[in-house]
């Protein structure tokens, strides 16, 4: 496997495999589609490599077509993700396991169903103090603290 074609095919296979792993394991809807795009990258690279092996432009034509399909897929998928997010307020794909066949068991095991746990409190950005700290005499601060509870 020292030739240029074989090693490019190996890289394309690796790209496809990594995308497949991401598609199977990730639970975020957006990341699932990103992994699908990775798989399409791998397939497109394979097309181009085989076209080069046969000294023909047909592989590149096929890759242009898969590019078109990928663009359509991304547009539709992102519209679908927005629609799904509006219903469930979450990007978790496990929330849609009710769409399975009725006689099949729930594919989500109990310890994997962590989406019922509420998300942690949002971290708001903290502004760093800007400029010079004002030099205040200590007495004024003390007076203000004493006066504020009275009012």
């Amino acid at each position, binding site marked *: 496997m020292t030739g240029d074609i074989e090693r490019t095919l190996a890289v394309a296979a690796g790209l496809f495999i990594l995308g497949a792993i991401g598609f199977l394991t990730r639970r975020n809807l957006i990341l699932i589609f990103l992994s699908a795009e*990775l798989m399409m990258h791998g397939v497109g690279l394979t097309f181009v490599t085989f076209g080069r092996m046969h000294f023909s432009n047909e592989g590149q034509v096929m890759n242009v077509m898969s590019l078109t399909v990928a663009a359509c897929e991304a547009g539709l998928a992102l519209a679908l993700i927005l629609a799904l997010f509006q219903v469930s307020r979450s990007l978790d794909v496990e929330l849609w396991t009710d769409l399975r066949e009725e006689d099949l068991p729930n594919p989500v095991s109990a310890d994997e169903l962590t989406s019922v746990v509420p998300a942690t409190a949002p971290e708001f950005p903290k502004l760093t103090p800007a400029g010079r700290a004002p030099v205040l005499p200590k007495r004024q601060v003390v007076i203000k603290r004493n006066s504020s509870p009275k009012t």
Partner: protein
Amino acid sequence: MNLLQGQGGLLISILLFAFGLWWLIPGPAQRNKWVGLAAVLLGIFGQLGVMRIPDNPLVDEILFGLFAGSTLFFSALVVTHHKPVYAALWFAMATLSSCGMLLLQSAPFLAAATVIVYAGAIVVTFVFVIMLAQQAGVTPYDQRSRRPALAVIAAFVLLAAILTALHRNGNELVAAVPQPLSDVAVHDLTQANALSHPRPGESLGTMHGLGRALFGDYLFTVELAGTLLMIASIGAIAIAPRREQGTL
């Protein structure tokens, strides 16, 4: 001298370039910037000189290693990162480096189109959707993936099968491919998809040849792709939530 003209010059100029950049990056130590500038310029010009040597195998090796390694590395980061925004940015990097792989496979138009479509349009749309729909902080479903061991086993069994086939039969497969058509003196127009093959003397993947293939042999496919794009845009507009249905 032979070493300097070939592979040594390449390494030395790369090292000079890297050293000059490191020298120029502002740090605690005060450095003379002319030294760094000289190193960077020497490195760039040396690199250009090495690249002009025809058929330097080391250049191909280095480029292939760089692009292949970064493609696989960045796509592994996409799959494993637990923040979707970072995953989208690593996906853009993986796309760019796989475009480098396409360039090495003599597909320059395709590499440019992929950069425009993927890194320009798709990743930006992904980031917009992440901004619209992402909950604050790291969500629990990003931290717990689903059956990772099973997925890795299944995928790597497939990868091992592909790599074994390539190892065993790769040379025979490549050797079994018939002679390229460009060697045939008379270009046979009666052959199947004759317009898709480069003409004698023409290289692979030129704009001319690709356009001839797309609008010659694959004209109906191009029309079909245009129709598909139109239908997909109509569908995306129809599916996307309306403003009166409530904002995200």
